[in-house]
């Protein structure tokens, strides 16, 4: 894995202990818990800003450079905009879906440095310097990638709205663990909800995708 900074590495290693690759609900919440504490502290600090600290006005745009699907985008964003919002509404990369905007459903799952992350809980500015992969990034031109092919073949969706997130979660899982067991898949995919209830077929698709990737 290239371009991985220390924080990413630490993050990845903690996740590897937690799961065999994907994003579990529990693992995610632990991370978020830490985030919430940090935020609360930061909030207090900002209540009385140090002289040199810059207060950003609401609505003011800031420059950010994002690396998405191997391409660099120089963008102006509000610091509070989520990566999800920027992908969908700013760049038209609507393969990434919006389900809850609070880190509960996984419809917005993207890979950040190969690790499945919820784009709704990631600020765009926070994603600077990371490699972001969205559903569109799994395509080779017009051709489906192996995980996408497996989902189509195994009928691993119904309405298809959670599907991009499910596909990204499987992609992330397989990048970490090329031959997952059923249990690895169930744990790795438990952070992605499907209201149509196609979980059984998603397990089949994940296994099929592992085969297709090997071939």
């Amino acid at each position: 894995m290239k371009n991985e900074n220390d924080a990413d590495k630490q993050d990845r290693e903690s996740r590897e202990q937690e799961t065999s690759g994907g994003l579990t609900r529990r693992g995610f919440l632990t991370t978020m818990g830490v985030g919430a504490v940090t935020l609360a502290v930061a909030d207090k600090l900002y209540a009385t800003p140090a002289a040199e600290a810059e207060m950003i006005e609401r609505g003011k745009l800031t420059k950010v450079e994002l690396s998405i699907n191997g391409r660099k985008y120089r963008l102006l964003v509000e610091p509070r905009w989520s990566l999800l919002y920027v992908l969908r509404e700013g760049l038209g990369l609507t393969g990434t879906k919006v389900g809850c905007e609070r880190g509960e459903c996984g419809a917005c799952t993207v890979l950040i440095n190969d690790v499945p992350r919820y784009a709704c809980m990631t600020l765009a500015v926070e994603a600077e310097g990371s490699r972001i992969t969205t559903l569109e990034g799994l395509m080779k031109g017009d051709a489906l990638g192996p995980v996408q092919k497996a989902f189509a073949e195994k009928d691993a969706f119904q309405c298809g709205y959670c599907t991009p997130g499910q596909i990204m979660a499987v992609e992330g899982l397989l990048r970490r663990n090329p031959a997952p067991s059923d249990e690895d898949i169930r744990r790795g995919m438990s952070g992605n909800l499907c209201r149509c209830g196609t979980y059984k077929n998603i397990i089949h698709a994940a296994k099929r995708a592992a085969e297709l990737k090997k071939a």
Partner: protein
Amino acid sequence: MKKNERELYFAQNIPLPETPKPAEGVRPWQTTTVVGKPLPRVDAYERVSGKAVYPSDIVFPDMLYAAILRCPHAHAVVKGVDAKAAEAMTGVRAVISATTPEADILWPYSPEMKTKLFASRCRFEGETVAAAAAETLYQAWDAVRSIRVTYDILPALSDERRALESGAAQVHNGGNKVKTDTYERGDVAKGFAEADAVLEQTYRNESELHTPMELHGCVAKWDGDSLTIWESTQGVFAVQARVAEVLRLPLSKVRVIGHYMGGGFGSKLQADKSTIIAALLAKKTARPVKMFLSREETFLAVGNRPPSTMRLKAGVKKDGMLTALEFSGTGSSGAYPAGGTSLLDWLVRDLYLCPNVRTETTDVYINAGPARPFRAPGHPQGAWALEQMLDSLAEAIKMDPVELRLKNVPAVSQARPNNPPYTTTGLQECLERGAQAFGWREARKQIAEQNRSGHVRRGVGVASGLWVAGGGNPPSTVIVKLFSDGSVNLNMGASDIGTGTKTVMAMVIAEELGVKPEMLQIEHADTGTTQYATPSGGSKTVPTESPTVRAAALSVKQQLLELAAEDLKTSPSDVALTGDEISSLSDTSKKIKITGVTGLKKRGVIVGIGYRGPNPEGKVVNPFAAQFCEVEVNTATGEVRIIRFLAVQDSGRVMDRLTFDNQTFGGVTMGIGFALTEGRVLDRNQTGKMVNRNWHDYKLPTMLDVPADMVSLPIDRPDPEANLAGAKGLGEPVTIPTAAAVANAVYHATGVRVTETPMSPMRLVQLFTQARK
């Protein structure tokens, strides 16, 4: 069409056009070469590549974003709205509320009950108070959050069980009762007197929320006086009718498009207030407006499966014959009339042979979001009561629960006037084949011999069901076009809500016209360009549309054969289409490819129109089901693990085995949620507000909660009388018996009868503790 079918929920309060009679002389398929095979979806590429444009994916360069300010109280009067600060904010382009002249319009919660779009009295938490449109979604939320509203908070009623008590808070002036319905046949007193065992029990289900993955909402865009709406909906024509009615526009000026949509489960059968609000904001700003609800709003304001309390008394003879069923149920529509007890008693009335039945259902108001139809309205709740009662009766007379059900399989619909027969009923076959495939008797025996000293116990359970509709019906019109190169266009108004409608229709065309499904273009769910269809609900899309599509394809085929006969210099009755070739029956050396037909080349296209014929007179078309499961219950922690699940469904002909099984697993998964984790929690004693308005606190099943060993066993018996395709509905019957089957398995494992949903660990631990005392 029969009157009662017109009144079913998926077609309620919308004008239904009639379609002409279809062509006669068409027979059901005997054998099929494409239909029934496991075909991956024709739109799979679009859905897995991200190319499919869902309504929430629409982005216009000059589009604004809208957000709604909703009442934070369960019951309050709006005294004043101050939006000055919001209007002055950066990026804000419009704010509307009750005082905005163009928003002074009526919203029909029901035909009889209309309120202002921004009502002064908010009868539920989440009622609309104001809305804003801004350059970014963040600015729109900033704007609505800065609107200052003065409320007079009123006492709220949040428990439907107390709605009719004296002193209960009044949701509407004039009492909290919506209505009471009664039904009676035979003499229940006599029936109970004849019984060898009589049992009585109260059951309750908590309100369940739809929460489809794609949020409710739309993009609204005006071109002068024409309005186009891209809406996440199950029925574009239903949305069109409602929007035209509320905004007083001609139907021709309202175009609703919903090619893809991310799930609905009944909550997207109708237009939502937010669509009207989007249209108003778009008009006011002369810009396209994107209006999608937040996830929290979808928990509060766009429907639910009503909570209900059901008392059931049942009598049975030693030989297993039911003698009497007496049912009374109270359910809640929420704050406005919305079918709070819709079909709640149907299974008690119709599932089993029983001469003496009396039911009474009372729908009441509470200060909570109005209900909407939710996957088989009333049925999973009714099954929760009836199917647990059957289990208890079986135990009381020492009979196997499958055996007891088999004793009471009816051939006619007893609940309907004149007891019409079912065209087909697979109830007996579902139970018998299911019991065999599951190893029911062996499993019961094995569990009876298990060591009961440990705290982890196994049990098996069964439940069955039928779905009141699922036969499909007119109206439906479909157009099929055959192009000169042999490729085909299908034009159909129905939505594919994720059930595989498009794929099934492609298979029907492939069956009749020999065209490969990938050579098909499908236009659908667009009021501007496709034919009228009722919303995709009621498990009626396949049985309604597939015969219609077949009729259209047959019309094309007939015209094609006539043209080919000219080329082959024979009569049209002497030619037949096989694959992509037409040949003479009397002289098989005479043949011609579709693409070689002179008449087709000249015309460039053959157009066929199909109409949905009526259902058989005096008969009932219903799907049936029996489901079996094995659970492991931890009596120390209250956790229930589902080890295996078998769903046996009689839905007539299996159209696509792949989507059939998928739909079955999905219904079972949803039923597992209803059984184990899902339930709305209102702060009953204080604020009346909803406590678990997100997916963290309101838990849907995840991949960890469904068994790996989940099997779909279709009966696959085509129903030739039902319609030209022989198919019955599937989407709803698959979720009807699930929760009851799990509850019966929990009882089998622990000896504790759980009568309330959800069977959460907390509830179970309490019950197990009580049972030990």
